[in-house]
């Protein structure tokens, strides 16, 4: 990450306030999302907004973006009290927002996505838009092909387009909501470089994150939210005076409300404070549980298939799959789970060829898949929690007897699982779709990890979850490996991969292009380098090593 502070801290302290929030309060039924939050955003500063999921960051952004109206409190823009009643007002006040979830329309070109904001033009002004994109591209230090379909761009580039879109009408304030969550370290470097260039131009950047080291590396000012309130604030001068450790300790205290000593290890670890202990050694003679040999698939509807995939997963091992989203991870997971038939190659489980077996047969042998699409593929939202927990056992004993569901057995199982996995649900009969993402993920884990799992694919298991559930899920993955299972962890979060995996294999365009043993030596950087395609020679040697 780049060194910070193009503008000296003393200048920021004196630079004019662009946005002043005073006592912003916003409640939703049953929860006060923002509880009298006051905030100054100054010209030429990067203002980091930190907090756990549910701390009120998103609501605050919605208020600034004009998507939500505060119940009370005032907003001043350049000294004038302003009611931001709609996204249009927000934009005309010079506030540009880049949301965590892409707001680009994948089927439209980059230029079309950008021209969407030109509501004043009757005719689409392609020439004008191309020129403006070029201008913003120079400012951001990014080169973007205006005629590419937005969905075909890499995530880093998509984000640059989103920033260009947010700045299309000359924004003074740029809000970036968790901008690094899906990016490779290299893309993050580019992003940080862009942010610093914008800062040098005198823009204010609000940078929302839950990663401490990012806040320290990029932020001039840090504001921490907890339970809808401002629970901590570090000024530029203080920030400058503090070491990274001191600032992290301050921020953690603000995020979790206790002094650092009292923070439970899970919270600290989830926030990235504690460096995970070195990976335990997998015994050299650990049996191979899953073996993929020259596996190929074909694409049905545009997603990238896998090509010549060779991979071994040993007992007790967690193999991480790193790669840019949509580079064949889906097919890899489904080919192992049995949801997708390979066109050639073989899948073996404990030396038994299971290539021809269907999902159910593989389930019985212990092959399980925790899907990334937990809301749609993972559960049936309108079914009860109990039914979802036995969803893959429909028609089988002991839950079904003579074709009839044994209600007592199902509820008993549900009761046990809810307790074991601490699934927070009003009852076993509650519809699963009404639960939070974290609890839905726990249902999936409970279901897939029960009844003798042997090999489990975890596909983005912590994506979009709150910190505590993230910790819980990661611990579950570790426990499974410790108990001798073979785990395949597919993730776009490199920190997560580095924390959990014994080795990390990089997938690109459906091919496994390299492997990094998790030896604690610049692992995320090395994986990131592989992902962006440089250092491919190093990658090859890594692969050769594996197949010796």
């Amino acid at each position, binding site marked *: 990450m780049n060194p910070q502070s193009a503008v000296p801290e003393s200048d920021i302290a004196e630079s004019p306030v662009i946005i002043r929030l005073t006592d912003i309060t916003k409640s939703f039924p049953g929860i006060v999302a923002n509880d009298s939050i006051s905030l100054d955003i100054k010209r030429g500063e990067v203002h980091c907004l930190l907090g756990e999921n549910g701390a009120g960051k998103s609501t605050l952004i*919605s208020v600034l*973006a004009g*998507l939500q109206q505060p119940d009370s409190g005032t907003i001043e823009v350049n000294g004038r009290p302003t009611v931001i009643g*709609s*996204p*249009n007002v927000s*934009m005309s006040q010079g506030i540009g*927002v880049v*949301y965590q979830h892409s*707001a*680009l*329309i994948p*089927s*439209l070109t980059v230029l*079309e*996505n950008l*021209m*969407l*904001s*030109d*509501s004043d*033009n*009757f*005719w*689409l002004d392609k020439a004008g838009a191309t020129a403006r994109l070029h201008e913003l591209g120079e400012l951001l230090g990014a080169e973007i092909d205006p005629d590419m379909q937005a969905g075909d761009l890499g995530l880093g580039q998509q984000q640059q387009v989103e920033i260009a879109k947010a700045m299309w009408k000359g924004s003074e304030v740029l809000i970036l909501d968790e901008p690094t969550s899906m990016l490779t370290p290299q893309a993050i470097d580019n992003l940080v470089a862009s942010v610093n260039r914008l800062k040098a131009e005198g823009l204010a950047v609000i940078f929302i994150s839950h990663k401490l080291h990012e806040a320290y590396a990029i932020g001039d000012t840090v504001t921490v939210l907890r339970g809808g309130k401002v629970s901590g604030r570090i000024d530029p001068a203080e920030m400058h005076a503090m070491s990274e450790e001191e600032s992290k300790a301050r921020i953690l205290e603000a995020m979790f409300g206790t002094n650092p000593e009292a923070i439970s290890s899970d919270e600290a670890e989830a926030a990235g404070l504690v460096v995970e202990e070195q990976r335990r050694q997998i015994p050299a003679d650990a049996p191979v549980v899953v073996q993929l040999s020259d596996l190929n698939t074909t694409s049905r509807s545009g997603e990238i298939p896998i090509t010549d995939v060779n991979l071994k997963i040993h007992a007790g091992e967690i193999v991480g799959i790193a790669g840019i989203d949509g580079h064949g991870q889906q097919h890899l997971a489904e080919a192992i789970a049995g949801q997708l038939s390979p066109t050639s190659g073989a899948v073996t489980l404990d030396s038994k060829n299971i290539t021809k077996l269907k999902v159910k047969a593989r389930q019985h042998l212990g092959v399980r898949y925790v899907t990334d699409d937990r809301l749609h593929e993972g559960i049936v939202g309108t079914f009860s929690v109990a039914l979802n927990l036995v969803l893959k056992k429909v028609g089988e004993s002991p839950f079904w007897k003579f074709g009839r569901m044994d209600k007592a057995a199902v509820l008993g199982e549900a009761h046990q699982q809810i307790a074991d996995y601490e699934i927070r649900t009003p009852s076993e009969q509650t519809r699963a779709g009404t639960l939070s993402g974290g609890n839905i993920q726990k249902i999936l884990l409970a279901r897939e990890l029960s009844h003798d799992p042997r090999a489990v694919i975890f596909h983005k298991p912590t994506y979009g979850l709150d910190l505590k559930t993230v910790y819980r899920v990661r611990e579950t993955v570790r426990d499974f490996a410790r108990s001798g299972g073979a785990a395949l962890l597919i993730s776009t979060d490199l920190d997560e991969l580095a924390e959990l995996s014994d080795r990390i294999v990089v997938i690109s365009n459906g091919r496994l292009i390299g492997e990094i043993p998790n030896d604690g030596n610049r692992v995320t950087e090395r994986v990131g380098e592989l992902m962006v395609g440089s250092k491919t020679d190093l990658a090859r040697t890594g692969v050769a090593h594996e197949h010796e």
Partner: protein
Amino acid sequence: MIPFFSDAFLTAFVVAALASAIPVMLAAIGETVGEQSGVLNLGIEGLLLIGGYFGFVATIVTGSFWLGFLIGALASIILSSILMALSVLLGLNQIVVGIGITLAGTGVSSVLYDFSYGSSKPRLGLDAPWTIPFLSDIPVIGPSLFAQPGMFYVSMLLALVTSIWLYRTTSGLRLRSAGQKPSSLDAAGGNVAVTRSLAVLFGGAMSGLGGAYLALISAGTFTPGMTHGMGFLAIVIAMLARGRLLWVLLISLIYGLFVAMGTVLQLTSLNIPNDVVTIMPFIAVMIVLTFFARRSALPAALAIPYVRGAR
């Protein structure tokens, strides 16, 4: 019997093909605009019939074809405002509401017709054609393409203008984005509900014009249920064309050609049952479907009500 492949025959053939193609094309343009904005309008069949009936009545009463088209369009706008209110503004299921509109339009137009003209069964005269100087003197295509009623040229112009609107203007881009990812339009400062509402009303107007064209120009009269599934055909055409109006025009013309061919077959001495002739255009469209339907890519947010902030 008319000798085949004479100039007069070919002219009549092209005129017949266009007479069948234009109503479908107009309805399919309306449906396209609706679908691109994210609203699946299954009420087209009913809208065609309502537009046809009221257009017919207006022309009978006033004697003016233009007034007929205007009233037909207005009637269908009013009927489609039900879809706008229930599905766009209140978020009810578009399929249910659309089918309801089809049933209502079919039923209401039949009842009104039987009540007012059921016994007299009046017919309209021919609309005076606009004869384009010089071009109309070309053999075959002159009299068939360049001596058509004014509404024919207006229809072609509407297809062109709609295409330019969708792909060359900012409001067209915003309309398409409402069908792809309404939250993006919302974040860009657009109003999804207004965009979709206007698209639905536009679709109503186009269907009304299509229905009126069918009654006033193609048939010269109104008969209950005269569309025979043409509205659903228009929906299919819109889906196949994926928002490209040139395709809408071409598939509509294929349909028109087969209808005209059916008419020709009836004129020959070949003894083909009437039913076979009637279903020919639909079989043609089904063949087109089997080849191209797999390519139909619908807007991502089609038929999904937009609620700000919902996941």
